[in-house]
């Protein structure tokens, strides 16, 4: 192999830096230090711990969603499915009279079936996943509304309410599960041939097909995974909320898109990963936490998320433009 002049000069590489999460890591650290220095209550153990606890549940819910984006598709039904799994578990317990674990398993099966339907329609009929999952979102949200109305006024049974509070070795189990799953997935992203193929499909699915990769199977299972993980997150969140709410999961899809894109995913596929997405979630959580500490009107907090999403998408566009040149 001969070296050519192309390798000689690599100036600052925006794409490499962004993809490796450099910008995001720096932003998270800066924000963290800023809040720690300016607001004493931020670095209080209780505040940090509750941040970590909330983050752990969202982290689980964003795993599958991230891989749908890696494949160049999107699953906007993620928030609705999250609400469905949680609310349905409660409904099965209170109205259906099931025991806790059968109820959870059944609710997760229903959630996963929604993901399967999404994936099936996208791969078989080449439906645009953005439009399709908006449809699924509306449909599932309707079902959640019906279920939640049935449950109005009461709290969930005690064993369900305690689920999210389960502690192992003195810390919340969700933190351990999320951390462990994150580590496994990051390892698989780096080393597993299946995950490598997934990235190849996301980068150029026609090329992947030519090299014998079953592109449709990847997409189908990514939608299934997206719904499954969203379902798990939803069950845990419902347990944490202790009662049914029609607001549950509303707008969550936009938070997740923002987090995933901040974490290096692209609307064009082929990039991103669960590490980046969780870091993106952490960044958003710190921003919201900071806004609360600075007594910013909660309604105005939405403005911040909007601005961040626009910035993230702009960066994504700029990176892709550079590549296109």
């Amino acid at each position, binding site marked *: *192999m001969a070296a*050519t002049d192309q*390798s000689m000069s690599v100036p600052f590489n925006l794409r490499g830096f962004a993809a490796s999460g450099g910008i995001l890591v720096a932003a998270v650290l800066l924000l963290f230090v800023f809040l720690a220095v300016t607001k004493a209550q931020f670095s209080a153990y209780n505040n940090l711990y509750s941040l970590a606890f909330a983050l752990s549940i969202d982290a689980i819910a964003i795993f599958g969603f991230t891989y749908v984006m890696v494949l160049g598709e999107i699953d906007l039904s993620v928030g609705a499915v999250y609400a469905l799994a949680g609310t349905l578990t409660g409904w099965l317990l209170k109205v259906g009279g099931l025991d806790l674990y059968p109820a959870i398993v059944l609710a997760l099966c229903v959630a996963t079936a929604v993901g399967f339907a999404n994936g099936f329609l996208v791969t078989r009929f080449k439906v645009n996943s953005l439009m399709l999952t908006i449809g699924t979102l509306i449909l599932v949200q309707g079902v959640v509304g019906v279920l939640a109305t049935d449950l109005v006024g009461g709290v969930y049974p005690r064993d369900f309410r305690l689920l999210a509070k389960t502690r192992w070795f003195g810390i919340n189990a969700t933190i351990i599960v999320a951390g462990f799953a994150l580590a496994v997935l990051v390892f698989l992203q780096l*080393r597993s041939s299946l995950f490598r193929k997934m990235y*190849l499909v996301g980068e150029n699915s026609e090329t992947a097909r030519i*090299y014998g990769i079953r592109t449709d199977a990847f997409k189908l299972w990514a939608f299934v995974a997206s719904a499954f993980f969203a379902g798990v997150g939803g069950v845990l969140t419902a347990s944490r909320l202790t009662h049914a709410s029609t607001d549950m999961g509303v707008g969550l899809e936009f938070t997740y898109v923002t987090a995933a894109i901040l974490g290096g995913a692209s609307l064009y596929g082929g990039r991103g990963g669960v590490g980046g997405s969780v870091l993106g979630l952490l960044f958003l959580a710190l921003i919201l936490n900071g806004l609360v500490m600075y007594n910013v009107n909660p309604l105005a907090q939405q403005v911040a998320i909007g601005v961040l999403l626009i910035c993230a998408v702009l960066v994504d566009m700029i990176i892709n433009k550079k*590549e296109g040149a």
Partner: protein
Amino acid sequence: MPDLVELRHVSKSYGPVQALKDVSFSIRAGEVHALLGENGAGKSTTMRVVRGETAPSKGEVVVAGQTLTRFSPAVSDDLGIAMVHQELAIFNGLTVAENLAPDLPTRNRAGFVNRKALNEFATAKLNLFNLIIAPDQLMSSLTTGQKQIVEILRTISESRRLIILDEPTSSLNAQETETLLDLIKSLRAEGKSVLFVSHRIPEVLEISDRITVLRDGEYIETLENAGLTEADLVQRMVGRDMGELHRRRASSGANRDIVAFGAKGVSGVGGLNDVTLDLYQGEVLGVFGLEGSGASELSRLLFGLDVPAAGTLHVKENVVPNPTPLKMIDAGVTYLSPDRSESGLFKYRALTDNITAPVLSRLSRMGLIRRTKVQDTSRAYSDRFEIKAGGLASTPASLSGGNQQKVMMAACLTPDPDVVIVNEPTRGVDVGAKAEMHRKLIELAENGTSVMVFSSELPELVSLCDRVIVMRSNRIVGELIGDEITEDSAMTLAAGSAVH
């Protein structure tokens, strides 16, 4: 008659690829001028220069005695030069009349579209050419041929002096072609000039006054269309100096007793009709067809990229049921993508990912990639193809066309296939890389791999192939073996006049 447009020593290069070399010819007022040449001869670039869509790297363009200094479609519009592209630019949701006059001031006083005036205008235009199309018909209800004609009509107006038509008949049937040729003749009768590109030699002979032949980006000759025959034109299109590069391979290593791969009665949704062929072990089989002949559709069907309407594929004696690329690879067949800008490369992934993509599972243990194996395999293939890159971590996006092509070829060979379906193996690569690629393909065949080459470059097929199948109108129209393979014979079959 005076010259309307004159090209003086026009050259155009795109990066390292020289598309036009010193082309000089002129288009007279009121003539039908045909541009003839093989794929890649420089016809499209010439048209784009005349139309002002692209500026020449060297040389000048003179329109009506005035040397162009700025190349833009807007300038050309002012000069009365219009072009109808092969890809139609029509509005399917609008009516014929609206398509004919998108910018016509047919509004009434209130600022609304005056539908009556619009339809009258359209009817007048349609009648001018004896066309039976209702002006208020929706564009989407027309046949491709009718759409083409409407688009041409749109570009015609008083101020137009030259109309450029890029392969206007490629998607038309015989009757529609006739209508179109009549239309061109009536334009000429009105004193307008037409620059016309077609692969179909009989048409070119029927309507053009003069014919300019291009070959490999070079100007060959401009001929008066008087007493010319198809053979004259074919010979000028292909007759080239066969240097070292294009010398025919002396002997064939094909073993005609063993069929490595074949298709029986394959038809496609896109029109491909009942194709049966066999590829022998160690053979280099070429498939040649002009655009629209069905050759590219065939190549996709043979690899399971598209679902056939009928027919079966078999590798050796085994039929591959419901073929998909994965099944074909498992059966020992791989595929080189015809257009590396579309597919065949992961442009922003490391060379290692590209080269080992088809064999990732084989290079893994318990689902985990064995990185040293990936590295070793990539290095071995990158060395074998002498890929010049900054390292295995660099991406194809940073490589030259020739090296990108080598990366694709390497990826195709990592599964160690018995059969390789190779499409346009040397598209857009320089002469050196071309020779190397040819050497590799012949080497493969000599080692017992069967190679099928789909190429639009005749010299390539002549120098590589033991046998060439020629396609036209979605079917196989001929087979040339050994010394029968010449550019003339293949082109004559491919451009044959009658549609059977």
